[in-house]
């Protein structure tokens, strides 16, 4: 399986082809459209991350020391961001996820989406992803 680092590099390379913000956002929107919808039953209050702007739902399962996430949002660009975030962490090991910094966002110029000002749920989602890493690590011990 590809490491987090390798997956980040893939994404950075993909984004390097975009000349302008429009291409970038068109891609993000298409990622958002393609992201599998979470089934309504999984959208429980416990899985919900409340943002003021957009809502995010996040759920995680562990399978043989790999964490698998599913996530959703009511806003399409937030869904696009979710697709990118999940792409790097999907199936990775708890110990890696627990400390992972999502550095690629900086490279592709999308860190603003994690600003506390956005209140879109993504900042909390990133924290939550790491917490799942910590929690599943702890469980295993």
């Amino acid at each position, binding site marked *: 399986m590809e490491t987090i680092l390798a997956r980040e590099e893939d994404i950075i390379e993909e984004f390097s082809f975009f000349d302008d*913000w429009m291409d970038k*956002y068109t891609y993000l929107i298409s990622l958002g459209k393609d992201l599998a919808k979470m089934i309504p039953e999984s959208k429980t209050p416990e899985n919900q991350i409340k943002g003021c*702007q957009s809502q995010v739902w996040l759920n995680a399962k562990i399978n043989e020391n790999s964490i698998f996430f599913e996530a959703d949002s009511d*806003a399409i660009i937030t869904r696009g961001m979710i697709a990118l975030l999940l792409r790097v962490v999907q199936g990775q090991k708890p110990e890696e996820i627990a400390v992972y910094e999502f550095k690629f966002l900086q490279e592709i110029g999308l860190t603003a*989406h994690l600003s506390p000002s956005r209140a879109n749920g993504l900042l909390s989602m990133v924290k939550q992803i790491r917490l799942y890493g910590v929690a599943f690590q702890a469980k295993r011990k």
Partner: protein
Amino acid sequence: MKYLKVKKDFPILNQKINGKPLIYLDSAATTQKPKVVIDEIVNYYSFSNSNVHRGVHALSERATDSFEEVRLGLCHHINAKHQHEIIFTKGTTDSVNLVAHGFRSILKPGDEIVVSELEHHSNLIPWQMLAQTSGAKLKFIPMTTNGELDLSTLGSLLNLNTKIVAFNHISNALGTINPVKKITSAAHSVGACVFVDGAQALPHMRVDVQNLDVDFYAGSAHKMYGPTGVGLLYGKSAWLEKIPPYQGGGEMIAEVSMEKSSYAGLPHKFEAGTPNIEGVIGWGTALNWLNDIGIENIKTHEDNLLNYALELLKEIPDVVFYGTAKERAAVISFGLKGTHPYDAGVLLDQMGIAVRTGHHCAQPIMTCLQIPGTIRISLAAYTIQDDIDKFIEALKKTILLLN
């Protein structure tokens, strides 16, 4: 005059965002500040900064005199009867809390508080908290789907148990101008006290508190071209005398012993601690700037722009308007069919257009309209026609990108 030409007074508007000229259409959240206000702050800290009141030295006198001059200026501006009826607070939210807190010792179980459904959270939650602590009952003036208050309900809502009626002058989420005089006289006819949240009215229209006959009126400097961190509470003397002080501290007492203190007269009774001196003095300059232009001229300018924008938006098929009150000011709230407001906000920002999206701290309105939020553009004296044109162009691009 069709449009004002004051944009040049605002240094911040002369910049690029994401490589595009900044178009600031988020003035209802906070207005930008004219250069004279920024200069006055520099001037204050470079020549007069000192703690106010109780100082015998020259700086203290200079600061106190400028500070009290602003109180007088605001008193004239809203036509209060007395200077001491102007209390400086942290902002509108602080003003609402001051009054709601004051009523804790006045209300009893069985009393009723009437609040409108059109409120900003700041003029709702303090009353919820008051209801909870006092045992009073909270009742609501409902809104119609076009964003007006349904006044036909007033007759059944108001009765001799009604102690407070609280509502805003202009809704920040929908721009509706509420009929203050009408509601006030209905409230007074059952002996209720009227609290009006004027945060969105003060920047956009002439406010005459004696003519409106309201008991309390609140506003924020930062929404009317002044600094952040300062606001006002106007209250009729009799009411301000009646409610107990909100905060204890320096300035607000006459005499202090270890066990007990006697409170100072108005306005000091409600101004504990060092005030936001710079904020008040900057506000004074903002007020002078505003009065030099004339609030009526600002209103005309904004009304013209509002109509211009509405016409252009109507031509875009995907646009759904929220709030179409007959009397409205400076705000347009809308959605794009099949999309989430947040997505539009993000894309508009990429094109240098600052709009606000979401529930605008007015969740009950969104619940009533059954939407997650709106896209809101809001205007100010410095907004120009070209801002609207650029916004419309960007909005069309946004719609293309999202579909």
